[in-house]
């Protein structure tokens, strides 16, 4: 054992592990991005934006491979012209889908005239399933600030947790450390949602702290209640899928399981709420 500590590389690595552990602990809380991180992100952001856009074609390619039968493949090889046309059609389809998505976002921003938005593309995600954090291609240059709410046409996505010069990090509402103050749209009962960590890609939320005697049925829509300064009131969070039976003396037990209204598996564009219409008017 003593010999192990005489091994210089081993000792250096041990020290590095301790230092990195301290760094991880220090950066796990609320903090602002250092200039070094901001610059690194700004350099990488254009490349990531390009790579993220290019991924759509790559994913389409793989999907085509897995969804095509042998006969189709053979046919494709024989008729190059047809394949070419199919490629064009696919490109059109992709553009149409993108158009639909952007139209939907535009409609949403039209409907929610109370807020001002900045639209941004998702350019990277955290590795693994442990944290639900993603990076978008808008930062201080677009007026983004920490703790701004992030939405898309379907509902609440998360909040800005780090802001760089041209990029920001968003912690989504399905992250296991994120809590959102909400209410049941039908009954106006107030509660709290928390992300759950499960293996697989079935992103779910849990609803806690409803007042005793709550009236909740599957299908109830949960919206933000506007308490706190992060999430504005009235944004859809999810739908109740399963109501839990409350047990005596266990106030921390969840009241319900929710299906988030946002499809986090296919998040490509989001909108950051940068302010309210009233604020804009005052300026």
């Amino acid at each position, binding site marked *: 054992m003593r010999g192990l500590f005489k091994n210089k590389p081993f000792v250096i690595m041990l020290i590095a592990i301790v230092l*990195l552990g301290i760094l991880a602990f220090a950066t796990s809380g609320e903090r602002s991005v250092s200039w070094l991180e901001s610059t690194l992100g700004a350099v990488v952001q254009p490349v990531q934006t390009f790579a993220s856009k290019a991924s759509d074609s790559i994913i389409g390619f793989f999907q085509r491979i897995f969804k095509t039968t042998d006969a189709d493949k053979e046919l494709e090889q024989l008729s190059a012209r047809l394949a070419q046309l199919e490629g064009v059609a696919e490109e059109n389809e992709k553009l149409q889908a993108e158009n639909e998505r952007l139209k939907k976002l535009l409609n949403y921003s039209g409907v929610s005239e109370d807020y001002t938005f900045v639209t941004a593309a998702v350019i990277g995600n955290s*590795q693994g399933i*442990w944290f639900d954090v993603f990076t978008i291609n808008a930062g201080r240059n677009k007026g983004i600030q920490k703790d701004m709410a992030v939405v898309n046409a379907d509902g609440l996505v998360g909040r800005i947790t780090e802001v760089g010069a041209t990029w920001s990090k968003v912690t989504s509402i399905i992250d296991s450390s994120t809590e959102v103050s909400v209410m049941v749209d039908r009954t106006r009962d107030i509660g709290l949602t928390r992300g759950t960590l499960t293996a*697989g890609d079935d992103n779910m939320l849990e609803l806690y702290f409803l007042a005793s005697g709550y009236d909740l049925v599957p299908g109830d829509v949960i919206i933000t209640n506007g308490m706190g300064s992060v999430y504005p009131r009235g944004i859809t969070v999810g739908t109740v899928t399963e109501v839990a039976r409350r047990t005596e003396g266990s106030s921390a037990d969840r009241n319900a399981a929710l299906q988030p209204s946002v499809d986090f598996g296919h998040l490509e564009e989001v909108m950051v709420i940068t302010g309210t219409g009233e604020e804009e008017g005052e300026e």
Partner: protein
Amino acid sequence: MRRAALPIALLIGIYLDSILFCRLNISGIRPDALLAVAVSAGVLLGSVKGGLLGVGIGLFMDVLFGKCVGLSAIAYMVAGAAGGMFYQKFYADNVIVPAGVAAVSALLKEHIMMLAVRLSGGTFSYAEMVGAYVLPSMLLTVALTMPVHVLLKRALARQVRTEHRAGRA
């Protein structure tokens, strides 16, 4: 071109881990391409270079995509340095050694992440996560490490040979 092999491998790894595997995976199960590169580089270039490369990769990923800075860096550094323990100690064609190191490193990395989630207040079933996510992801990482090592070995062949000779001298 050969000199650029490692940077190219890293760029591809960053792209795969931060974009492609997040969208294209099997029920959330995905390999760790950068871990494969770190392990392979460690085996081919030694503990110091492997460890340094691991820290670099980890810090980069933490800064740009992680929740806190340092967690991935620890895992990748250990992976690179662990790979280096087998530096010049076996036939370079052997892919079992890097695959084994990748398996252990992947387990270590997922457990570091698990611990971080627990400390930040997240709750989950350990057995379920290990059975349904950690082990399948580890197997995918192992499977990916083998071709990555073969390709990197071929690309870094000259550098490895030079270092081999220097080592003998």
